[in-house]
């Protein structure tokens, strides 16, 4: 850890260096959270002064059909997206860790969707999923099937999960690959000498050693899941600020920045943040409990 103690005038340098971040932390983050909570107790259209609304913005949420639909969609989306992303990227990383030929090429291929703009790639996916002469439906028709409304209300959830997982595997893969490469080779040699099977190596060497990466990646992926927006905006928006598969962020965007109902949007943002905090706390508790094996 750092060991320089600032003396005299140097204290000003410390303050000066930290100042932008302190302002960002105080105003940008902590202040904004407080302000958002405050705004959630008002009705405010940004044209007239805010009026006190008590808890009405919260009380109205259960009756807000778009919000409730968004809540259900977000939970369903996270429930599919988080395990799929973590498991597939872990699995790809373990495959790549086998010292196969073409490692660099594979790594680039899986990473490509992660660095590309979801807006731009989303346009491509609108074509893949298009009901009328879309790529997927053309392929289905070619083998004699019936076209599917991929972005319609029935299937949109799964279509959206696929695109988002497709775009997220690369990031997880890199984290897991770094974690795998940090496991000392001796562990495997010792375990093999003791007669461990491939399955036992995975269960008792690889997974425990990777537990910190898996934990970190699960927390991160969950936070991302609750904030999913770009692909959803591009792929599912329909007229008048609606969507065939609205999520919470979409609903916040719609209330706050399409219809300028700031109090309403703030209440939804508070609910979203509370959900993320609760889930993260649950993860940390789980990690503590399982920490003994990791």
């Amino acid at each position, binding site marked *: 850890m750092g060991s*320089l103690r*600032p003396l005299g005038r140097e204290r000003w340098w410390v303050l000066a260096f930290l100042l932008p971040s302190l302002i960002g*932390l105080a105003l940008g983050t902590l202040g904004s959270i407080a302000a958002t909570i405050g705004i959630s107790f008002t009705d405010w259209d940004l044209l007239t002064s805010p009026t006190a609304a008590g808890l009405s913005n919260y009380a109205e949420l259960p009756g807000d059909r778009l919000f409730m639909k968004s809540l259900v969609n977000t939970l369903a989306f996270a429930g599919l997206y988080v395990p799929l992303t973590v498991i597939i990227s872990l699995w790809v990383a373990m495959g790549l860790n086998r010292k196969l030929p073409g490692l660099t090429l594979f790594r680039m*291929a899986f990473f*490509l969707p992660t660095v590309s703009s979801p807006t*731009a790639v989303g346009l491509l996916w609108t074509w893949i999923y298009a009901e009328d002469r879309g790529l997927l439906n053309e392929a289905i028709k070619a083998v004699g099937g019936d076209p599917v409304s991929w972005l319609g209300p029935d299937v949109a959830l799964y279509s959206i999960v696929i695109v988002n997982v497709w775009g997220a595997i*690369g990031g997880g893969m890199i984290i897991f690959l770094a974690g795998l490469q940090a496991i000392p080779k001796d562990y495997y040699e010792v375990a093999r000498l003791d007669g461990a099977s491939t399955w036992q190596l995975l269960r008792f060497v690889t997974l425990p050693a990777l537990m910190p990466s898996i934990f970190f990646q699960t927390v991160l992926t969950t936070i991302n899941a609750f904030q999913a*927006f770009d692909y959803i905006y591009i792929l599912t928006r329909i007229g008048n600020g609606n969507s065939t598969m609205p999520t919470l962020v979409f609903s916040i965007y719609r209330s706050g920045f399409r219809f300028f109902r700031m109090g309403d949007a703030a209440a939804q943002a508070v609910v979203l*943040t509370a959900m993320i905090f609760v889930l993260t706390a649950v993860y940390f508790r789980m990690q503590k409990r399982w920490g003994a094996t990791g």
Partner: protein
Amino acid sequence: MTRNAWGDILAFAVLTLGALAMIGPFVWMISTSLKPVAEQFDMALIPQSLTFENYPALFNIMPFHLMIWNSLKIALISVVGQLLTCSMAAFIFAVVRFPGRNILFVLMLVTLMVPGQVTVIPQFIIFKTLGLYGTQAPLYAPAFLGGAFGTFLMRQYFMTIPIELAEAARIDGASLARIFFTIYLPLSKPALAAFAIFAFLFSWNDLFSALIYLPSDPEKTTLNVGLALFQTQYGGQWTLMMAASLISVAPIIIAFFLAQRHFVQGIAMSGFK
């Protein structure tokens, strides 16, 4: 063959299929953008009559050159702001001991969990009150107020630099600012490069902020909002749409091929240790 060799072959086969699923859509994007409109529903991968006509057509419909410039400008300013303010804070956290340091650092990390949507409402109101709604300032100004991700990333790297270097410079009378600019920054080029790529991608790929601050003026807005506007007007004209997408994706892909190591390193470095 041994079990392990069969496993390798199986893994290779499955990974190849996976890699094709990753690259396939991009190949399709390029191929379609080079087809004439008449061939847009032709499922052949190689266009029968190769054409570049979609690209000039694109720029005639919308001022894409302005939007590219806007996105580039906003991204570059954001990179400068982030590199400077995050590494300044990271330097203090890594090198200087002061009361409350650990609490402050933990507080900073906790903000990683705070979704952007909860901070965006007051920020929007502030920028609107300042008369900056409809300008590009809200898109790059926040980059000058540090950030948990970059500060954490740079701090981790600074901690690997032996503290004795700073101590020796200090005995020779160097100020903290001098130690930062002449010792720490020059020694941290790999980390700075990786973080710069991140900050650039974050800004270049951002849709949400641009959508709320610059929703509709093609001359002022970013490429991503332009693409969304284009989609509402020209949806279904796939040759044009794919050319538009490629304009946004191509520079990133080219940069990615050239600096793959830095990209990968950046993500790996962000892994908690």
